[in-house]
């Protein structure tokens, strides 16, 4: 469960978050669309606990160890192999050895990384690195997944695979918050849609099966009109 209650934050004079509140329950995936600088990344960082908000509070059941983060920076060490990276990060999340071995083998299989397990991350392609980043974010079995523009730099097939993995995660009862300025990418995954402009939720509603095109013009109306 994830709760955002009256979140406010500002960098100097610029208001990054202006009274943002919502609650998400397991299985829900919220896609937040908004132009660059609307405060999307700030929102994610506040939810993840990277930034202390000036006002209001964000609460995630299970605290920081229940949070998985995938951003355009893979958070991996190029010199280390895939396995070493996963082991390092799992260690930080205090994943017990047997659980680590089981989860690592399962994630590597599901993400098709068996052939690269002992290769240094530096030598992998962008698509593969993104998959390792996903494995890293899921290695400690987080209840909440925070995704910051995860599709950037991915070609069509890699994006497709990525969506498949995320869909499986939602089914497994995880809460996901996806932040992107690209409406087409985020829509299929979402159970709820929110439009964000200059730190405020202009609109937030369940998707009710609306397609990407429909959401796109609702987005244009909301962002320009408001």
């Amino acid at each position: 469960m994830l709760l955002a209650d009256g979140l406010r934050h500002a960098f100097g004079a610029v208001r990054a978050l202006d009274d943002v509140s919502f609650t998400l329950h397991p299985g829900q995936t919220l896609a937040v669309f908004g132009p660059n600088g609307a405060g999307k990344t700030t929102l994610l960082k506040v939810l993840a606990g990277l930034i202390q908000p000036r006002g209001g509070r964000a609460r995630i059941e299970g605290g920081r160890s229940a949070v998985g983060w995938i951003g355009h920076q893979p958070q991996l060490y190029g010199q280390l192999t895939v396995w070493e990276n996963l082991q390092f990060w799992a260690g930080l999340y205090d994943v017990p050895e047997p659980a680590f071995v089981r989860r690592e083998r399962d994630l590597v299989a599901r993400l098709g990384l068996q052939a690269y397990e002992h290769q240094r991350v530096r030598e992998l392609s962008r698509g593969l690195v993104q998959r390792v980043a996903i494995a890293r974010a899921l290695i400690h079995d987080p209840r909440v997944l925070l995704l910051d523009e995860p599709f950037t730099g991915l070609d069509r097939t890699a994006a497709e695979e990525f969506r498949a993995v995320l869909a499986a995660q939602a089914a497994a009862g995880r809460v996901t918050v996806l932040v992107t300025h690209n409406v087409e990418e985020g829509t299929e995954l979402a159970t709820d849609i929110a439009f964000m402009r200059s730190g405020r939720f202009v609109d937030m509603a369940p998707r009710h099966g609306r397609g990407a095109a429909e959401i796109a013009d609702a987005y244009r109306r909301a962002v320009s009109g408001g």
Partner: protein
Amino acid sequence: MRLLQTGRWITVIGLALLPAVYVRAISFTPVERMQGAAQKIFYLHVPAAIWTESAMVLVGVASIFFLFLKDPRLDRFAEASAEVGIVFGSIVLTTGPIWGKPIWGTWWTWDARLTLTLLLFLMYVGYLLLRGAVTDPGLRARYAAVLGICGMCLVPFVHLSVYMFRTLHPQPIVLKPSAPSLPGSMLATLAFSFVVFTVLFVGFVTQRYALSLLREQAAPHA
């Protein structure tokens, strides 16, 4: 801007009193037998040195409170006193050698007071360089605070190590715990000079503080 006006007025008063200090030191205070006229540099050198060191303590204390209260005013004050610390430090680093040349025969001596001031001066420069190198105001303020606190904590260690290393500096006449061995009139002149330097310090810091306030209002960071 009211603050700027007060800062300017204080500085003007300070500068107006400065000639009074000069006159008093030069003509109304006895010449010291052993060192001759050069000893009168003492009346400028010591107050400036005291303020150079105190400015670092002010930066440190303001930084400590800043880390707790996150109040930008403290950060501005720390920056202002660091810059004024450099100004007073440069006075010490110029008058010191000028005083040293006739007395000890060399322009620069690694004695306690000068070495400490040089280190303080370099730390102020480092402090302002760090501030210059970081654009994001929040980050800059926090980094400057961390450095300011470390700087303040280093001062006592510099005192200890430099005094122990070797010192040519005449025993600290005024600061000696026992009764100051300065005749009344000299001590009075020193006190008067110290007051004027204090006025100048306050005037400069107030103006510099107001300046960064104006800069922030003029171009609020994106």
